């Protein structure tokens, strides 16, 4: 299976505190990759670097096994087709559910966006996505007025509307009830089936085991273990780092 993104020797230092230390990973196309580790292990730092929110000090990113970049700038994430959700849900709160998703599929060039309008194609696409995420009935509600679970679904709906090929879900399941977890897990599986590379940052081991094809375990910014979830989660060093056994 082709590797859609490989990171090589990524390092990040925050004022003397090493958040990521010489980290290398490979993310295969059409797979769900779990990234786990105790608090402060560097998971969200990695997500922030991959989505351009912060820049790495060293290292390389190799996309589709063919082109390399040293840094991912914030205005380049759409070009590299990377998208993400956030630990604290970040929506366009004072916009409707419909507009939240339309924003993603709208024309991005300034000139074209002034002189274009949303067509049936756009509206049908948004309708399909909002129906899949059970948000169609709420399409005219302000995003701020949705329930916590619906807000998470809207974040996912925006990702589905984007043409992202690499998607990072940062603790998407936290605080959700079992039905919602099941629903989101199914959406993630369907994204994988569409050939997208899905990174799931998560603490819930059962979700990781059920959902992921491959898992990376981080500890203090270093790679502690990698492999198939069930096998990795039985490794003593992983249990020790995670559970303090």
């Amino acid at each position: 299976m082709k590797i859609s993104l490989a990171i090589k020797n990524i390092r990040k230092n925050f004022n003397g505190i090493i958040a990521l230390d010489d980290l290398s990973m490979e993310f295969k196309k059409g797979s769900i990759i779990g990234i786990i580790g105790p608090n402060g292990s560097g998971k969200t730092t990695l997500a922030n670097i991959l989505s351009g929110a912060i820049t790495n000090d060293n290292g390389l990113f190799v996309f589709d096994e063919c082109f390399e970049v040293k840094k991912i700038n914030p205005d380049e994430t759409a070009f590299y087709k990377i998208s993400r959700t956030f630990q604290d849900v970040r929506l366009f709160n004072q916009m409707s559910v419909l507009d939240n998703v339309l924003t993603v599929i709208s024309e991005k060039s300034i000139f074209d966006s002034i002189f274009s309008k949303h067509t049936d194609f756009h509206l049908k696409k948004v309708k399909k996505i909002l129906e899949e995420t059970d948000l169609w009935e709420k399409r005219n509600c302000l995003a701020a007025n949705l329930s916590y679970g619906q807000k998470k679904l809207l974040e996912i709906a925006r990702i589905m509307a984007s043409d992202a090929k690499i998607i990072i879900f940062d603790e998407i399941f936290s605080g959700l009830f079992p039905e919602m977890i099941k629903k989101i897990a199914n959406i993630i599986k369907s994204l994988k089936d569409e050939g997208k590379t899905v990174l799931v940052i998560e603490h819930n081991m059962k979700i990781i085991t059920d959902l992921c094809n491959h898992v990376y375990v981080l500890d203090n910014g270093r790679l502690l273990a990698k492999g198939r979830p069930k096998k990795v989660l039985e490794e003593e060093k992983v249990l020790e780092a995670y559970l303090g056994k």
Partner: protein
Amino acid sequence: MEYFIYLTTTIFIYAILAISLNLVAGYTGLFSMTQASFFGIGAYASAILTTRYGLPFSYSILVGILITTLVSFLVGIISNNFKNDYYMLVTLAFNAIIFGLFVNWQSVTHGSLGIYGIQKPALLGHLFPESISFLILVFIFFLPIYLISYFMVKSPFGIALRAIREDEKVAQLFGYNIKNYKLSIFIIGAIMAGIAGSLFASQVSFISPPSFALSESIFILSMIILGGLSDLNGSLLGAIFLVILPEFLSFIGFSQEVAAQMRQALYGLALVFIILYCPKGILGKYEL
């Protein structure tokens, strides 16, 4: 009748100004305090070119647009590097700098003495000396500005502006070049303010720096907060309310001087009341 026409003309001029700031602040979340400066640049360009060089109004307004575009481009590029309170402070500083130019560049602006004798425009060969004709001319400018703004905010461009206002990092994640978007709407808003300035200079026939001071930027901001952020009709409503308010004070028996002083206090009171009890403004769709 003349008084009513004068008041209506003033309302339309200020409505253009309020729309210009609502696009920048209400739709995009950029609380610019420089709008009065662009209003002033348009006014001074028109006043200088018509009184000193005898250029027709149509040319003077075009030159005003050109100068406003250039200045807003520079101000926009620099202020784009700041956010929130710092953005306000930087644009406030630009307001002070441009105001300082109006006062101190005496060879051009006549400083505190101002420029007087500004003629009512002759546009397309038709004279507009009468107040009613001037009102029609102002409306001819207001209507397309309102309609352009309306279609702009309903277009994907408008949705992008609101997304940037809500969370520019996330908007960037989805492929928007936020700096260019912010700069574009800043320049568009400045051009509209410049046009309002040209019309204002023609209406009052005398301009001087105090008309374009920081208090004027606050006045425009009050209009859109009162009428409603992120709503074009709110801009119009805010302009109607705040232009009529001091006139109403004169009607109920206050002298012009007292009414002028009370104007500031009433604007302040209205703002406090709106922010406390109606944070979206009367028609607004965006809460601070």
